[in-house]
């Protein structure tokens, strides 16, 4: 199904207030997804802190079907929320990962246009999310040789990207009812 054609109509014919309400609905959805994820048991793999990042489903929805500005808005709000609830370092990590992944996905969408698929976009989003966090960690903790961790980040970003893109496809009807 060609979502792109439908996507244009989602933002068109909407005034500022409607767009703002839409943004806050998607942000609320992101928060709910984050809470759902924190209820689920941790992924049973021997690697610290790896998770799917279900709230990125909302960010991806905003990017694919609403627009770049909306996606950045959701990303920044998400970072602020993590900052308030889980502290400065967690907030910084969320923000760096989120902003880098949105930027990478936008670049890929601009370069490849319709040739790229949602799943690949999501995979690169997941990987670059991890890379962004990795960059911040190496900046904060400079004295450490962290490169052994890098392949783990690639694989976990890949898996997270596949999972979130499939879930996005699955929850699309729910998001559409927000419109």
């Amino acid at each position, binding site marked *: 199904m*060609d*979502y*792109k054609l439908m996507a244009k109509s989602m933002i068109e014919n909407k005034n500022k207030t409607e767009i703002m309400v839409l943004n806050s609905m998607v942000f609320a959805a992101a928060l709910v997804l984050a809470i759902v994820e924190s209820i689920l048991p*941790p992924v049973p793999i*021997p*690697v*610290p*802190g790896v998770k799917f990042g279900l709230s990125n489903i909302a960010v991806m929805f905003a990017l694919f079907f609403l627009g770049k500005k909306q996606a950045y808005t959701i990303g920044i709000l998400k970072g602020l929320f993590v900052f308030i609830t*889980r*502290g400065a*370092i*967690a907030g910084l*990590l969320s923000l760096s990962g989120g902003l880098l992944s949105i930027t990478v996905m936008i670049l890929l969408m601009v370069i490849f246009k*319709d040739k*790229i*698929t*949602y*799943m*690949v976009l999501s*995979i690169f989003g997941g*990987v670059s999310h991890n890379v962004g966090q990795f960059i911040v*960690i*190496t900046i*904060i*903790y*400079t*004295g*450490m*040789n*962290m*490169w*052994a*961790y*890098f*392949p*783990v980040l*690639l*694989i976990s970003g*890949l898996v997270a990207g*596949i999972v979130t*893109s499939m879930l996005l*496809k699955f929850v699309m009807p729910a998001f559409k009812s927000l419109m």
Partner: protein
Amino acid sequence: MKFFKRTDIIIIACILIVSGALMGIYRFNMSEGDVKAELYYYNDLINTVDLSQGQERKFTIPQNENILLQVYEDGTIAFIESDCPDKVCIQTGRISKPGEFAACLPNGVIMKIVPKERDEKDVDLVIGQ
């Protein structure tokens, strides 16, 4: 834009191969043998723990008394108590192989496993040996 194309599998395979190769190179460079655990508090190495003694003991670090670590008889080490909100460090469980990590980022404590005889192969990329 489609959801999925067959050529996407090639991209997925490429990422898997690259990460597998990187992991293989790292494991290959890490010589087998005795290991030790290095504990960092932000950028400073604060403690080095020999894991080959086969004694079980618990210890804490002076920078944060709320963090409790335990060395096990089988040469593994783990965070067992911490006051951080998400407990990622504890969920990591026991670690023992070179290159493995356990981190408590909210408290700024990182533990990593390195070979006991640290030679030029494992020169730190940032600060040198």
